[in-house]
């Protein structure tokens, strides 16, 4: 492993000064240390964000909604009473991330900016497109865990459980760089390989995620997070669905369906949202929404099962959120 310097950044401004092409941010380190040990990155400097206590907060007010500092740990998010009360689906999504030990270390900002788990990307000997190489090994290789939507020369899936859950609650992200602070809907933060094949989001090497904010859910809002994985804990999603339905009796006023582990970005399903909006939720409506969510899916040689799996999961999440028996 290459030697590197480890510098504390007590403020965002200091972090931005210290950052650059040869530097990496470290917060919980649960992903970064793996990347270092696996030889995927060899930075000259690690900029320690944990020195910046100002980014570690979790605040809720009915008027402002929820504000999460980027350094909030997943454990803090999982156990917070206001989160459990007002955003129960978020707490549920966090509860199935990794393991309790990892959740104690991992941060909200780090989870959103984690690198893909693709086993070709993670193998230092394979020079794949995500690492600037010539081919995506998944195309002709073992691709059972890879993308069925949104792939283009690279077929990773975005590994975050947190991102679909936050996006379904209409989260916004704020990040700062030399040019100042930007705030945008979280969904716009993530970019697919057609936009940038070597990065999963807009964050530049000298920018820092500061905050995630969520509006207060309207009355009648119900959320469900479902995750399928090979193993019962300490495993990334084979497939996940975050569903937030604003219900008025049996009628859905507004819906947000976001899928995880189907595409290189957390995958919103606006077509499904449209099917649900204004509809009385029935098994048939849920089925149509699920079909709409997966429209355009193009499975590869070993991941065709992800299409029916995703449809089943979307349907199940909708019915569960609406309280309709299947």
């Amino acid at each position, binding site marked *: 492993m290459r030697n590197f310097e480890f510098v504390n950044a007590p403020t965002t401004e200091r972090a931005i000064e210290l950052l650059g092409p040869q530097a990496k941010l470290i917060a919980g380190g649960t992903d970064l240390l793996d990347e270092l040990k696996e030889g995927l990155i060899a930075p000259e400097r690690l900029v320690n964000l944990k020195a910046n206590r100002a980014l570690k907060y979790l605040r809720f007010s009915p008027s402002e909604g929820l504000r999460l500092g980027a350094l909030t740990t997943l454990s803090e998010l999982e156990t917070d009473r206001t989160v459990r009360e007002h955003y129960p689906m978020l707490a549920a999504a966090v509860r199935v991330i990794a393991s309790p030990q990892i959740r104690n270390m991992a941060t909200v900002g780090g989870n959103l900016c984690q690198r893909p788990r693709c086993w070709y990307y993670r*193998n230092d000997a394979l020079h794949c497109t995500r690492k600037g190489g010539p081919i995506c090994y998944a195309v002709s290789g073992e691709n059972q865990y890879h993308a069925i939507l949104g792939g283009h020369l690279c077929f990773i899936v975005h590994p975050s459980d947190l991102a679909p859950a936050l996006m379904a609650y209409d989260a916004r992200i704020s990040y700062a760089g030399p040019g100042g602070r930007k705030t945008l809907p979280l969904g716009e933060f993530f970019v697919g390989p057609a936009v940038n094949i070597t990065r999963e989001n807009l964050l530049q090497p000298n920018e820092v995620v500061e905050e995630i904010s969520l509006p207060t859910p309207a009355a009648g809002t119900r959320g469900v997070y479902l995750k399928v994985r090979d*193993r019962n804990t300490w495993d990334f999603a084979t497939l996940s669905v975050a569903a937030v339905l604003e219900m008025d009796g049996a009628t859905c006023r507004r819906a947000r369906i976001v899928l995880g582990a189907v595409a290189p970005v957390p995958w919103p399903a606006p077509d499904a949202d449209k099917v649900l909006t204004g509809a009385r939720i029935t098994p048939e409506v849920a089925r149509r929404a699920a079909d709409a969510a997966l429209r355009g899916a193009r499975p590869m040689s070993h991941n065709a099962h992800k299409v029916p799996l995703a449809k089943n999961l979307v349907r199940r999440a909708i019915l569960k959120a609406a309280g309709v028996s299947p």
Partner: protein
Amino acid sequence: MAKVLTRVELNGVVNDVWVEVPENEPAAWPKQAELAVLGKPLPRVDGPDKVSGRAKYTHDVNLSHMLWMKFFRSPYPHARITSLDTSRAEALPGVKRVYTYENTPDISWYANRSKLFDTTLRFVGDEVAAVVAVDEHIAADALPLIDVEYEEMPYVLDAETALSPDAPAIHEGGPQDAPGARNLQGGRPSLYTRGDVEKGFAEADFVIEHTFRSPCQVHACLETHCSVAAWQGDKLTVWDSTQAVHPVRESLAQILNIPIANIRVICLYSGGGFGSKLWINKYTVLAALAARDLGRPVKVTLDREEDALAMGNRPANVMTIRAGCKRDGTLTALTLKNIGSVGAYNAGAGVGTPLREVYRCPNVSTEESNVYINADVARPHRAPGHVQGTWGLEQVLDILAEKCGLDPLDFRLRNYSDTDQVRNLPYSTKGLREAYEKGAEKFGWRDRTARQALSRGPKKRGFGLATQIWGGAGGPPGYAVVNLYSDGTAAVFSGGQDIGSATRTSMLQVAAEELGLPADKLSIVMGDTQGTPYGFVSGGSRTTPSQAPAVRMAAAEVKGQLLELAGKQMNLPAQRLSTREGYVFDTQNPSTRKPIAEVTKELQFGFGTGDRVQNMLIGKGWRGPNPADVSVNSWGAQFAEVEVDIETGEIRVLRIVAAHEAGRLVNPLTASSQIEGGVIQGLGFALFEERVLNNASGRMVNANLHDYKIPTMKDIPEIESVLIDLPDARANSVGVKGLGEPPIIPTPGAIANAVADALGVRVFETPMTPQRVLEALEKGLVLRAQPEEGRRA
């Protein structure tokens, strides 16, 4: 003393071994003997050391001035080294030496098919060079400074492709390759036939044929492979994470051409040994060579990736089983065609033993091919062949039972075999019927339909069972020494090792029983060639049945001396005396007794100026021959309850009842612990574990414990052990058989049958991931639209 040849089996390989027949070996305890220590729940004696961290593993051994070794491994599945330049690595400050084929003694490896360092590399992970440096990090930093140029060669990663005539040849026409049999180890399949299978199939009312695919499973020992080597003059000490301290010593003596007596190999504790640590490894030899060359101790530890790439595995198998039975369920014929991938060098990939032996069937044939591929070499992996073979066979049994309209348990009972049909011998003991009965009772097998109602919506309950056979007879060679001291305590020195299976505790119990001492009056040493007499490898479920009779014989010899001593003190003939619970007593008048510690006081006396001097009693024992006229096996049956979500493909194993018979029950605590470990590993095979090789590069893409999934606590179901205590007086003087491997064997088959019961379709490939479950469901929907196959007119 008479010497005889006796049959000894290790992992399915049978050898004849010369052994002296003990003249004074104690007779087997009667079945109903009331024993004081054996069969009792003694907590494992090494428990406190392990939970407190006092137990020293090889990874914990650090010596002063110790150097570290790291390996440079082949990045290609098949390549020839065209140039090798280590000068940049050697120039790195802190690097002491770089070993390659150019400066390392010509030591042959892989049954003379290769060398310690070969110029032809046949799998990703094959050793190219080893760096020795002052610390581990510098050694690692030097690796990328080694400049190697390769001529890449065509490669093949799976056995079926490797057998095709245009596949690349992994070994160019050596003497061990028959012409025309490309990549087929030994040039031909191994064949077995009894009866007339064509006739058997003609007699059948139902005939089915299915192909089962099981993947390569790596051992994933918690403690990765490692060694430390240190020389003092011409004496070599090696700490090695091994299952074979004595065989490693002998191999080192042979390879380094030094006397056996000059070598000490130590492995007191090991973090897992499931067959990958059964023999000497390249890194141990190199550590010894480097330590001698450089005059300093050398430590080498493999990382998780290296362990997965180069330290062996359970081979992948493609098994086609054809089976026929009468309408009443009587099996008429069984055939197996097995293609197993042994990796780049010779190994075993047979799976046929359960099919040949478990069920009564007059007409059986098996054809098994061991095939070279460009991947790491297979090694025995906890119940080699039996896990895969049983997984396939037991599913075939269930399919036939369904065709006959018979309960799976009744179908198995109908085909119960009272004899070993391969060797034409009766079984010494066979507790399988009892395992079926008691296991089924504990599980509620006969009432399981009531539990089917617990299926909710898409979550379907299913129930399955599977049968287990394993050798587990053990055999010579195995030696032990017991010392009885003047304070009435005793020390046991046993060959073999405790690889985590609580063998120390078992051996201590055997000695305590024979001596009539409470267990806390004994201590035991295992796993140090200098501190113990010889024992063979601790693998193949052989340690307890091999070493326990030796320990008992040694203890009996000491007991004889003790009774002589006591007889004189008590004015009674020694033959009238015996021992129990720390006392010597008169068998004709048990109230006449004397504490053993009082008897042994006579061994102690003052000497001259008052120094305490003592005599001691010493006994030696060894393992005698195996009986020639019976077949010794251990038996079991497991029952699984699962819940499968048909919309997501997720399988939850809810409950496993594991009923096992391995002769005399030595200790219910450690036996249950052994069973739980086996079930958990079997569950991993059934649901999670698979080495994934990338076709475009030949590299393993999941050589880490995140992507190579082994069960976590949250995946482990309730495991209930049913311990069948059936002392086997013919097997050996303690009546024990091996239990190390048996509990992993039936778990995948029982889970597979439960999953099929839940789904109504079968998953013919492990691991049964959500992907494969959903694919099988999809395929099942297609198949159901077609007429039923296999039914004869």
